[in-house]
């Protein structure tokens, strides 16, 4: 089906950043060090901003065009090949195409990706170009950044699983390059390798899944494989297996248990990269892939694929709790956010699992709601987490800055030029922060709103979608007892989220500054506040999206429509649905969830961390009341948690439950050991055999050589013997 309109230009959304990638590298190589390049072009930042701006504009136009209908366009043949059926001797031509496919899922993710990439680009210009450690190498950052964005946008727009995989891998490469941006640090090099290899394990299974799918359908194009008749024609068991393989790929990319180990280490990259990879783009790729499986579950025979749906939800539930637990003990502000990402993505997996289970069992209306809620949570989480990472970057950046000033002050000389690698000050540790609410008002507000959205404080962003996910997981749990496990896990996790996110905010922004550096922090870098403010309003505006009934729109990618905000399915209905559910079970569930996430968790955090600001400091009104509440709770309910902090569980959590250690040991001892043995075997045995043949031949030939005596008598003797032998042979033959 040929489209017309903006969709014909959709490929430029991807092509522009790809083409700009070598351009920035080349210009950077040419002009590095020139003041115009450094200050005017921001070492490529302005170029990439323009490119991302055009991509965003095109994306928005495309989104407007396809807000309510499915479209596909520009299908070119990439290459063709043939399949030969031996039994019938028929040659079947297989076409591998390339094109653009747009439905509601694409529209939502396209908006998330292009909008956040653009904002992160704005943030990067503030963050990267003012950090002396990045001097004269930011062009590399912007080039890789653009390629990464192209990978994500391409993956979202692709019209086949093949091109989805191709861009998926390109993103993997870019994440490798960006995580290893500070290549000279061994930890960054290690983290980059770990990220690539861990996701590669998943990718390989994804590839196997795609191959199985191709074998079943003869194509990987969405248009072909989503055909209901074709899906019913294939064996549901094999289809489930193929999708299961693909799900392993999603697990790797979205950092779910047990392939989650790469994500926290990936914080070695610069903070904009963390925002990009861990919030806006790459980790959502796995969710996108699972969301794309919806048509298979919808068309397959009833109840034939529930196992996979349950596995998906289980992986989600386990990861959600595990990550939240580890987040309890993290001191690094970015690591808390990393584990929080993992945990929130796990929510979405559980929601998708519930949706897939529902649709495969014929509960189509419920499935639509569950699916929509999951995708809506993806949207809310991406916006909030992108903002949280950028806010944490803002904190870290200003901490660095303040540290420089303190450092310079102490030395009594200009200490700006050399970077503070030489001392032990950790600008990312929350134990060095505190009391920043009054010193960094914009950042603190953004952090507050973002955390509220992640926790699910009523009426703010993530609340709407998280409620939906938990409710729908319980919907399934009522029908399928085994689903109780993930449903219960994510319910408990809601409270845990409330605790660790509040802990992060109170440790960072409330209380008195814990170091001299924190007391000197000021919000002063240009460019950085822009995305923070924009995203604060987007997150607060979650209620508008909820009122527009986005869950329905997202859930039904062919027929769903936005509702009138004040209309029948608008905000009143949503509010009623959330807070005054007529079903008593879900009514109670809602308030249990709210109680856990918004009251119990934050209260516990307030009792342990934070406190009132230091003398003379006063935060903005919308934060000051919270800090006052915090100090009251802390004085009245503070308790000693050192027993817990010194427990073996706490130590295990500090060591990330030893997963990394086990994996490292398995890789190094087992695989590398095997490889070393193989290498010795190859040299000694296989090549040894060759050498053995060689040396025995040489030995034999030196024996034969001894016949060469040089004496004429011997030669005549041999000639005579030979003649005799020939005569005997001829005689015998005759």
């Amino acid at each position, binding site marked *: 089906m040929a489209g017309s309109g903006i969709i014909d230009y959709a490929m430029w959304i991807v092509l522009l950043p790809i083409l700009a990638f070598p351009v920035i590298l080349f210009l950077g190589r040419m002009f590095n060090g020139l003041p115009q390049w450094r200050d005017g072009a921001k070492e490529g930042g302005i170029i990439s901003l323009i490119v991302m701006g055009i991509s965003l504009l095109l994306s928005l136009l495309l989104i407007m065009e396809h807000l309510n209908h499915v479209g596909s366009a520009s299908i070119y043949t990439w290459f063709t*090949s*043939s399949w030969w059926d031996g039994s019938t001797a028929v040659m079947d031509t297989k076409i591998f195409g390339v094109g653009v496919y747009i439905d509601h899922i694409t529209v939502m993710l396209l908006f998330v990706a292009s909008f956040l990439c653009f904002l992160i680009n704005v943030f990067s210009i503030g963050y990267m170009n003012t950090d002396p450690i990045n001097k004269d190498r930011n062009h590399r950052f912007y080039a890789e950044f653009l390629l990464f964005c192209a990978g994500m946008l391409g993956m979202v727009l692709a019209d086949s699983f093949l091109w989805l995989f191709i861009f998926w891998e390109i993103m993997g*490469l870019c994440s490798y390059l960006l995580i290893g941006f500070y290549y*000279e640090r061994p930890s960054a090099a290690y983290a*980059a390798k770990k990220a690539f290899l861990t996701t590669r394990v998943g990718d390989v299974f994804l590839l196997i899944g795609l191959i199985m799918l191709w*074998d079943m359908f003869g194509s990987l194009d969405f248009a072909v494989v989503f055909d209901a008749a074709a899906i019913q024609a294939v064996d549901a068991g094999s289809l489930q297996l193929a999708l299961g393989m693909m799900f392993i790929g999603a697990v790797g990319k979205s950092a779910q248990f047990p392939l989650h180990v790469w994500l926290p280490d990936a914080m070695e990259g610069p903070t904009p990269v963390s925002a990009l990879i861990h919030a806006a783009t790459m980790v959502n790729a796995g969710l996108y892939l699972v969301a794309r499986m919806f048509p298979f579950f919808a068309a397959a025979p009833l109840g034939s694929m529930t196992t996979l749906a349950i596995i998906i939800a289980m992986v989600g539930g386990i990861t959600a709790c595990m990550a939240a637990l580890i987040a309890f003990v993290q001191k690094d502000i970015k690591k808390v956010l990393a584990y929080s990402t993992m945990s929130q993505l796990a929510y979405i997996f559980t929601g998708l699992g519930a949706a897939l289970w529902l649709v495969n069992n014929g509960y189509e209306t419920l499935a639509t709601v569950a699916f929509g809620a999951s995708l809506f949570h993806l949207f809310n989480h991406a916006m909030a987490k992108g903002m949280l990472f950028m806010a944490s970057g803002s904190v870290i950046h200003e901490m660095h800055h303040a540290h420089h000033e303190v450092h310079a002050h102490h030395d009594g000389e200009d200490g700006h030029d050399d970077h503070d690698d030489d001392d032990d000050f950790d600008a990312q540790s929350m134990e060095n922060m505190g009391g920043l609410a009054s010193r960094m008002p914009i950042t603190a507000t953004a952090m507050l709103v973002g955390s509220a959205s992640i926790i699910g404080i009523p009426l703010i962003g993530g609340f709407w979608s998280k409620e939906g996910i938990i409710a729908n997981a319980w919907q399934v749990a009522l029908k399928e007892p085994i689903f109780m496990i993930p449903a219960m896990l994510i319910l408990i996790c809601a409270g845990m989220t409330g605790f660790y996110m509040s802990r992060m905010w109170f440790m960072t922004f409330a209380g008195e500054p814990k170091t001299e550096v924190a007391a000197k922090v000021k919000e002063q870098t240009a460019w950085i506040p822009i995305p923070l403010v924009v995203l604060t309003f987007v997150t607060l505006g979650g209620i508008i999206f909820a009122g527009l009934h986005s869950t329905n729109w997202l859930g039904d990618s062919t027929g769903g429509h936005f509702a009138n905000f004040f209309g029948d399915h608008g905000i009143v209905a949503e509010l009623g649905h959330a807070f005054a559910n007529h079903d008593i079970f879900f009514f109670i569930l809602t308030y249990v969830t709210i109680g856990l996430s918004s009251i119990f968790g934050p209260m516990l955090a307030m009792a342990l961390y934070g406190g009132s600001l230091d003398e003379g400091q006063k935060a903005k009104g919308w934060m000051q009341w919270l800090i006052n509440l915090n100090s009251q709770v802390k004085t009245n309910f503070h308790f000693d948690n050192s027993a817990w902090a010194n427990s073996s569980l706490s130590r295990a959590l500090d060591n990330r439950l030893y997963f990394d250690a086990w994996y490292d040991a398995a890789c190094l001892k087992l695989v590398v050991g095997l490889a070393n043995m*193989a290498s010795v075997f190859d040299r000694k045995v296989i090549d040894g055999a060759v050498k053995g043949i060689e040396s025995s031949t040489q030995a034999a030939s030196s024996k034969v050589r001894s016949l060469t005596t040089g004496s004429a008598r011997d030669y005549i003797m041999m000639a005579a013997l030979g003649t005799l032998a020939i005569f005997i042979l001829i005689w015998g033959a005759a």
Partner: protein
Amino acid sequence: MGQNAPLKIKEREFILVGLFLILTAAIASLFPNIASPNPNGIIDWISIPLVGFPILSSIVLLAFASQEKASRRTKLDSPVRLACLAFSLVPLGISTALFFDWLAVIDWTNIGYNSYVIKHQYVWIESIGVSWHVGMDGLSFPMVWLTSILVPITIVMTWDEKNGSAYHPLLLLMGGSLIGVFVALDLFMFYVFWELTLIPMFFLILKWGGDERRYAAQKFFIYTFTASVIMLLGLVTLYFLQPIGTGAHYGELTGRTFDMTLLIDSARSGNLDGGTWLGIDMQKAIFLMLMLGFLVKLPAVPFHTWLPDAHVQAPTGGSMLLAGVMLKMGAYGMMRLPVAMFPDALMYYQDLIMIIGLVSLVWGSIVCLGQTNLKRMVAYSSVSHMGIILLGIASMQPIGYAAALFMMFAHGLISPMLFAVCGAFKHHYHSMEIGSMRGMAKWSPFLAVYMMFGWMASLGLPLLAGFVAELMVLLAYWPTYGWWILLPAFVLVITAAFYLWSIQRTIFEGGDEGQPPESLHGETPPDISGHENVAMFLLALLIVLFGVMPFIALDMMNSWSNNLFEMVFAQQGGA
């Protein structure tokens, strides 16, 4: 200064000789057509321009250089390499022009089975049925193109090699004889060129190699020569067992022919409708003899141990051509002879070939992980990738064959890139040990970029040349062999692991100051020189080009594979 004066005349002579040779080639290439008009009316662009000219001109250049006294020979380096570069552009120009239909209108995606474009045949030894028979189809043209692309790039890459007056002509000779293997349509001629390729490579390793070059050169020569003798045995058996025929190109004395096209036709008609040409046992015997020769050349485990030694000792240019084209001779031979002639034997040994391929793939990659020498690691990765070609053949699907062909082409671009990186590394860091230094990105950003690019291409990153081939092989593999696919999948992870690990220990790390290798004795390592940059850039460009637009080469490979299946296997009534 006085000494230089006579040499100036020498340089002029060289230019004159070069122009003369080009002119001769141009005239000679027209000549056969004038003498005996070709049925399809196309000028013989193969015999002289693609094969004869590079070989003859390199011999002339070698002869010239050897006439000079050793003391003055270094002065010849510069004009000789210029001449070599210029001469090597002739086959490139011709083959590219043929592809783009500038010289003749050829429908590359529609060449009938066992019919070739610009096929030319001249009687050579009438008594035993030997002819000079050349032609190209979807199987050989990509290989010819690849060779003609690689030779000039290799010359540029090794621009400042010592004793260049002999080195560069040897590369040119190598290219000519490799093209000869690919265009030969006569078994005799095929074998002559097959062995001819050994000679320049032997001298390249022997004279420009590393410390153990004598051992490596001898091992390379004896090992592959022994294998090709077994192959020769198979060819001779084939020759004598074929049914006696009459007509042109059948020997006057023997009544038999060395002509491949006639043999393949004879095989096809013999195999029609369930018949077995030469009998199934003899098919299997000849199939095995030929396959052994090709498997050693490929090389497949366990016949691979000559390769790492040869590569580690060989100079950069030798390694680039060895890995880029010479290994593909084995795969090419399989496709051209045993596969096309003995479909029953192929089906009988299908699983064996699959197992050999799988073992090569897995073993090669695991051994890679245990290597500490950069070049050795890359050499073993070649073994691993050649296993993929065997898997493609064993899949018995057109998509698998097309994939094997594209793998040959893609690996022919990627592996020279890898060896160019290794060569540049050795050249500037005087070391090959992985982990002897850290932080290469700091001193040699270009080399670091090319290294990362090459490594990524080799581990099968999408949109680079290798990916499409690997994907297609796996697509063909799964329906036939099912869950055995886990092994190739495991290899994909291992491949990524050893490449990334070596990147981590060379390009990355090192702190702010970096950590240069001890072999430099405290000097600051330089980045790659200009000519290396140009050569590697061109290779990188080609890898991206064929990764993004695989159809350029894949279309003709695909049609060749389809044709093969329709004509050869469709007659067998099911695999």
